[in-house]
C-alpha cells in the first residue's frame, strides 16, 4: 500500500499528489513513469514521475481526472492509500549537454517536462521552455518551470494569458530566432505530432514522450505497441522517449481510442456508485 502524503489541486481537474514509495524515489530519473492501481478492482494506469525526493522517500505525480481511474484517484485524500505502485519504468530521458534546448509542454505535459528541464539546465544547456494550455486557468507549474528555464514563454489558445495561439506558433518563432540543438515535446499526442512537423523540415532533433495504453509496463503484453521508423516498439520498455520525426502518429492516436466506448461505461458505473 502506498500512502498519499500531499495533495493539491493545481487547476480545475488537475491534481498533484505526493506518494510514499521509497524504492521508486531512490531510483527514479527524469522521463520515467510508474504504473498504479488505485484499489482492488482497479485498472493499471501509467503516470509520469514528476519529482522524486529521497529524503522523504516519496514521488510526485500530476494527473488530469479524465476517466474512471483518474477520478477515483482524485477522490482520495491525504492519508489514504493506493494499493499498487510499481516503477520506475521506461528508459530515462537522455540528459547531456546538447547546447540550446527548447522544452515544449502542452497542458498536463508541464509536469513531466519539469524534471527534464531541471536536469538539462544542470547539465549546462540553455533551456527555453514553452508552456501552453487552452486557457489561463489550465496553466500549471508556471513557477516551477520558470525556476528551471533560462526563458519561459507562455501561450494560451484563447489568449487569456501570454501569447495568443498554440505552442507551435511560439516554437516556429523561437526556431527562427535561435540555433536550436534539441526540442523536447510532451503533451497530448496531437500536440507532439504538430511539434514534430514543425521541427522536421528544420532538421532539429526532436524527442517526444509517447503515451499509449499500457497494462504491465514491463514488455510482457504488447498493448503499448507504437511504430517508430516503421518498426514496432513496445513503448513501456523501448521508450517512452522516441524520435518524434519517426513516430507513426496516426497509429498512436488511433490506438489511444481502443476503449472509448468502454471508458464511457466505466465512467457511468462510477457516477452510479456515487449517487
Amino acid at each position, binding site marked *: 500500500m502506498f500512502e498519499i502524503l500531499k495533495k493539491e489541486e493545481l487547476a480545475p481537474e488537475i491534481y498533484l499528489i505526493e506518494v510514499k514509495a521509497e524504492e521508486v524515489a531512490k531510483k527514479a530519473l527524469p522521463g520515467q513513469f510508474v504504473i498504479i492501481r488505485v484499489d482492488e478492482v482497479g485498472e493499471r494506469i501509467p503516470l509520469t514521475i514528476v519529482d522524486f525526493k529521497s529524503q522523504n522517500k516519496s514521488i510526485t505525480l500530476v494527473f488530469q481526472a479524465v476517466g474512471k481511474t483518474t477520478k477515483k484517484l482524485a477522490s482520495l485524500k491525504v492519508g489514504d492509500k493506493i494499493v*499498487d505502485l510499481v516503477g520506475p519504468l521506461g528508459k530515462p530521458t537522455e540528459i547531456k549537454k546538447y547546447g540550446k534546448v527548447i522544452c515544449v509542454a502542452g497542458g498536463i505535459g508541464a509536469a513531466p517536462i519539469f524534471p527534464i528541464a531541471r536536469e538539462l539546465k544542470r547539465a549546462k544547456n540553455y533551456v527555453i521552455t514553452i508552456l501552453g494550455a487552452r486557457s489561463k486557468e489550465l496553466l500549471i507549474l508556471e513557477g516551477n518551470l520558470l525556476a528551471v528555464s533560462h526563458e519561459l514563454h507562455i501561450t494560451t489558445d484563447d489568449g487569456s494569458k501570454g501569447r495568443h495561439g498554440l505552442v507551435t506558433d511560439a516554437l516556429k518563432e523561437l526556431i527562427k530566432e535561435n540555433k536550436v540543438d534539441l526540442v523536447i515535446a510532451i503533451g497530448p499526442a496531437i500536440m507532439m505530432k504538430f511539434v514534430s512537423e514543425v521541427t522536421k523540415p528544420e532538421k532539429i532533433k526532436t524527442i517526444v514522450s509517447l503515451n499509449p495504453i499500457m497494462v504491465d509496463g514491463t*514488455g510482457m503484453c504488447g498493448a503499448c505497441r507504437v511504430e517508430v521508423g516503421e518498426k514496432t516498439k513496445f513503448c513501456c520498455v523501448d521508450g517512452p522517449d522516441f524520435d518524434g520525426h519517426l513516430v507513426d502518429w496516426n497509429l498512436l492516436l488511433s*490506438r489511444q481510442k481502443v476503449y472509448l466506448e468502454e471508458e464511457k461505461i466505466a465512467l457511468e458505473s462510477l457516477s452510479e456508485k456515487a449517487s
Partner: protein
Amino acid sequence: MAEKKKEINPKKTPMPEQEPLVRIENFNEVALGYSVKNAIAEAERCLSCKKAPCVGGCPVEVDIPAFIQFVKEGDFLKAVKKIKEKNILPAICGRVCPQEDQCEKYCTLGKKYEPIAIGRLERFVADFEREKGLVEGFEVPKPNGKKVAVIGSGPSGLTVAGDLVKLGYDITIFEALHKPGGVLVYGIPEFRLPKKVVQAEIEFLQKMGVKIQTDVVVGKTVTIDELLNQEYQAVFIGIGAGLPLFMGIEGENLNGVYSANEFLTRVNLMKAYLFPEYDTPIKRGEKVAVVGGGNVALDSARTALRLGAKKVYLVYRRSEKEMPCRHEEFEHAKEEGVEFIFLTLPKRILSRGNGWVGAIECIKMILGEPDETGRRRPVPVSGSEFILDVDVVVVAIGTRANPLLPSTTPGLRLNEKGYIKINEIGRTSKKGVFAGGDIVTGSATVISAMGAGRTAARAIDEYLSK
C-alpha cells in the same frame, strides 16, 4: 456366481464436467472434480506395479503407486502428503499437467486400456485436503540466518521458495505484477485453473514464512547486484518467458489485435470479464480469430467464446496431429464450438477502415519435409488465399525471453536466443545466482518449471552450506 478375479474397467472413470453449452456462458471451472466414489473406483484400477513406469514419466517423480494405494484405502490425507513430498502444488499440477505426455504415457495399464487418471486423482486428494480445511503446515526448522531472493512468483520460484523455507532459509519473493503466481494467475484461465486454488497454495507458502513483495520489477526497482550486495546471499531467477511474439505481418498493430499475453492478462489478472465491476476493459469480439496451436491459443479461443463471441476460429499452420496442446483442452475446445482451421497461415490483417480490424487474409499450407523439431514443415500453397471476417485477432504464436532483467545484470551469460544459460544444477555464470523454468528452457510446462526449481533449490542449499 463364484467370485472371479476382479475385472479392470478398461476406461478411465469419467470426469464430471459442465455441459459445453452451459459452460461457455460462464468462467467457472469446466472439470468439476471426482467424488469420493469416483476417486476410489479409479484408484482401484491401478495395478500397483512394482517398478512403476509411471513414476519415471513424472518430471518430479511423484511416488504414484504409493499415493494411489492410500486413495484405494480412502486415506486421502496420507495420499496428498505422499504427493507433497515431491510436488508442492498438486491441486495445480493435477489440473494442468500434460499427463498424456508424462506420467500417464508410461502407465502399464495404458498398454491395453486407458491409463490410470493419475492427474485427476492428484487433483482430487489436493482439493479434498484444501476444501476440508485440513491443509497442515510442515515444521519449519530454526532459521539458519541465510537470506535468498527469488525473482518471479511462477511455479519455478514458488518451488524454490517452498523447498528452501523448509530448510530454514529466510526467503523473499520479488514479483513484478501486483499478484503472485506467474502464468498461473495471469495466463491460464479461471475455467481451467480457478484462481482460489492458486491463492491457497501461495497462502500456504506465506504461512510457512515465505515473504512476497509484489510491485517490484527486478532490473528497474532494484537490481540483482544490489540484492546480492544488500542482504541476500543467493538469488534465484524464475522470471518466465514473458515477451510476446508477433507475426510481423501487415495490419498487426490495428485496434482489436491482441497478443495472447495481453488478452489473457486483461481477462485473468485484471478480471475484464467482470467489467465494469472491475475497471479493466476488453474488446468483446463477435468474430474472433486466434492464431496458434498450443495451450495458449486454446485458452485464448475458449476465453473469447466466454466473452460472447458468436464465432471463434483457431488458425493453425500445421495439422491437428502437430498441435502442441493438452489433448483434453483440444477436446474441450471442440465441444465448445471453436472452429479449427488447420494448415493455414495468416498473411495480413485487413482494416475495417477506421483503424480497426475487419478481416484476416490467410493462405493454405501443405506439410513438406520434417524440420529440425521432427515435425513436417508447412509450406504455403500459392493462390490459395482466402479471407475471414473478424473483429478481434489474438496472436498466440509463442513467447521469448524478456531482456529487461538480463540487460541490467552484468555477468549473466545468455544463449543466442536470450535465455539464461545454466549448468546441470541450475547455476548461472554469475556467482550466487541460479535460474530455472521458462527463462532457461523457453516456454515449457508448470511441472518442468517446478522440477527446475527443485534442482536449483538443492544447488542453492549446497552453495550456502559450504
